């Protein structure tokens, strides 16, 4: 029993943290977020580092590592709030690798792994997918239906309408398919892995928002004392830590399950997504409260984090939906699973 990363995984985390901190300094992040743009040069560097294909099999041009490594990157991307097609592309890789036919894998995975032909995934609702990340630039789109199936489409087979969301650090569109071909097999595992990746991003976002709150609470003085000395503030910060660590634990566990114990993944991933969706919102909102008026201004960076957290919380099933799924699994098996 050992919950620690391997040396290689620690190295991936360290490199990612340093790389992202250097590329997405606050001024640069703001510039991109306000313009609703990504930085193509940085995306090319990420692809160069092998990130885009981190979990994709070597035979399809990837690094052949696992979901734990993807989780590590996603957490750091969330911490940096990187505006980037990384997530959408990884989601497409997860679905195609997990549920694509051999032909679909051969056709699409190499481009996804090299970052040269990115992909994305949307969830269908009443025939269309209302909110698909990075659909406008994707070479391949996968639309998941309610029955665990999915359709692979290209831009030529789809109507893609850009949509503004509160999260200006990620680009979204609505997508309606006019053609396409079905996936080869069930998407449950891939969907769970996508949820795990999002939970990791939420963990990183929440970690950063908590750090901002703690720093501010140490510096800001009112009534002659740092505000962090007041329990209404310090207990709020302690609560943030509880929720950030909880999100991290469930996410790491789901990542581990994806790689080592796939039968535990659906439950683990839904727990992670439910918990991290709540934690992401609550911690960022709580951080805003600690910041007072300055936290409500456009000028302060916090709102970008809060908006990403809220948006991630609603992607691929919100907390309510995943909690219900967890309850369903527990009620079906007749036991609190894992006891």
């Amino acid at each position, binding site marked *: 029993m050992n*919950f620690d990363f391997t040396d290689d995984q620690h190295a991936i985390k360290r490199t990612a943290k340093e790389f992202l901190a250097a590329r997405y300094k606050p001024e640069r992040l703001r510039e991109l977020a306000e313009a609703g743009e990504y930085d193509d040069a940085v995306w090319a560097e990420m692809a160069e580092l092998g990130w885009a294909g981190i979990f994709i099999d070597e035979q399809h041009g990837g690094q052949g590592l696992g979901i734990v490594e993807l989780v590590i990157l996603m957490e750091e991307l969330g911490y940096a709030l990187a505006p980037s097609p990384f997530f959408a592309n990884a989601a497409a890789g997860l679905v195609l690798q997990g549920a694509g036919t051999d032909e679909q894998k051969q056709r699409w995975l190499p481009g996804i792994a090299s970052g040269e032909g990115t992909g994305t995934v949307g969830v269908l609702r009443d025939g269309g997918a209302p909110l698909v990340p990075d659909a406008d630039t994707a070479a391949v789109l996968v639309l998941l239906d309610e029955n665990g199936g999915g359709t692979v489409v290209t831009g030529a087979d789809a109507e893609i309408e850009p949509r503004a969301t509160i999260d200006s650090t990620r680009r979204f569109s609505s997508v309606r398919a006019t053609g396409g071909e079905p996936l080869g097999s069930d998407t449950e595992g891939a969907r769970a892995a996508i949820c795990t990746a999002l939970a990791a991003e939420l963990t990183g976002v929440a970690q950063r928002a908590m750090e901002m709150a703690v720093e501010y609470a*140490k510096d800001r003085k009112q009534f002659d004392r740092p505000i962090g000395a007041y329990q209404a503030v310090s207990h709020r910060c302690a609560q943030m830590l509880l929720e950030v660590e909880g999100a991290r634990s469930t996410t*790491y566990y789901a*990542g581990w399950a994806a790689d080592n114990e796939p039968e535990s993944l659906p439950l683990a991933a839904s727990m992670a997504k439910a918990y991290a969706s709540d934690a992401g919102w609550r911690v960022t909102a709580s951080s805003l409260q600690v910041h007072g008026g300055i936290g409500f201004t456009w000028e302060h960076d916090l709102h970008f984090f809060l908006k990403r957290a809220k948006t991630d919380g609603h992607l691929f099933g919100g907390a309510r939906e995943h909690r219900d799924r967890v309850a369903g699994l527990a009620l079906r098996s007749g036991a*609190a699973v894992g006891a």
Partner: protein
Amino acid sequence: MDLTLSPKEQAFRDELRAWMEANHPGEEPEGDEAAFEFRTAWQRKCHEDGWAGISWPKEFGGRGATLIEQAIFNEETVRAKAPAQANVLALAMGGPTVITHGSEEQKQRFLDPILSADEIWCQGFSEPDSGSDLASLKTRAVKSNGGWKVTGQKVWTTFAHHAKWCMLVARTDQDAPKHQGLTYFLMDMEQEAVQVRPLVQITGEAEFNELFIEEAEIPDENVVGGVGNGWGVAITTLMHERATLAFGLQVQVKIALAELVQLVRDEGLDDDPVIRQRIGQLVTEAEVLRLNAYRGLTQIMKTGVPGPEGSLGKWHWSDVNQSLTETAMEVRGPEAPVVDGEWTYRFLRARANSIEGGTTEILKNIVAERVLGLPKLR
């Protein structure tokens, strides 16, 4: 990351499971006295077969097991619904405190009877006017020939009515700053000068007591860790309290949750959307408790010091256990207040969770100050 047990841990668990199965003493009898005797007999049996003091060093009669193995032991005990060992406070806190701060003579004198449950211990820290602010305590010890005379009052003392020894913190220097004037004693409970009065709890039972102490005698050799060092020694006791608590507790929560899920099905509320949201939340929170506890253990094994996960555990557990028992009451609906010896008892008992072993507010202070580095309000 490897979240499976290593072959050695697996072997430990298998051996323990087999032993538990062969030796399980059955259902605990009702009534405080009978239950306590039952737990004492159980601890004796555990001790004979080498299952008392799991993580104590071998030289002091323990098993010398790793922290993970200790966690496995706690888990398996709960899973098998085996009784608690009678001398819980001494096994988890008193013994480790003597091992860390005690003299060679104290180790010889006190450790063995703890393991065999021949001498039961209680913890005399809290006083009527000193709870969270423990260092403000007033029970005083005055130097006398070859020892000390102690006078004062203690409260909420669990198991005092069964105990031979009390871990007692008393003030030995009235003039020193409040944290520096304290000394840690082992007080013999079997003397006229110590009166124990049971306190009936909200559940109707009496697991804790008041202690009235009037010139009780404690010889010099029962000072632990030196005169005036009582605060530091007491902290060791409290650290052990919180560190070891987490483990059995998270499994208890999982088992209670399985029972709650069954209750939901029995009541036909499987499809009730509100109850489903509660269940989904509780299953997730219980898993967070378990995973945080394991991440904390990994941290301790790696660095020798508990990480932030450890400090959060006790507080989080009390939140989860309280909302679990509240949900059970909700599921039972109009029948909920009926005394059933099961859920109503747990529901009431859970109110202590956020008070005993340090209140939630105090634990949040600790997290804020020691983990996040926020300033103290002084």
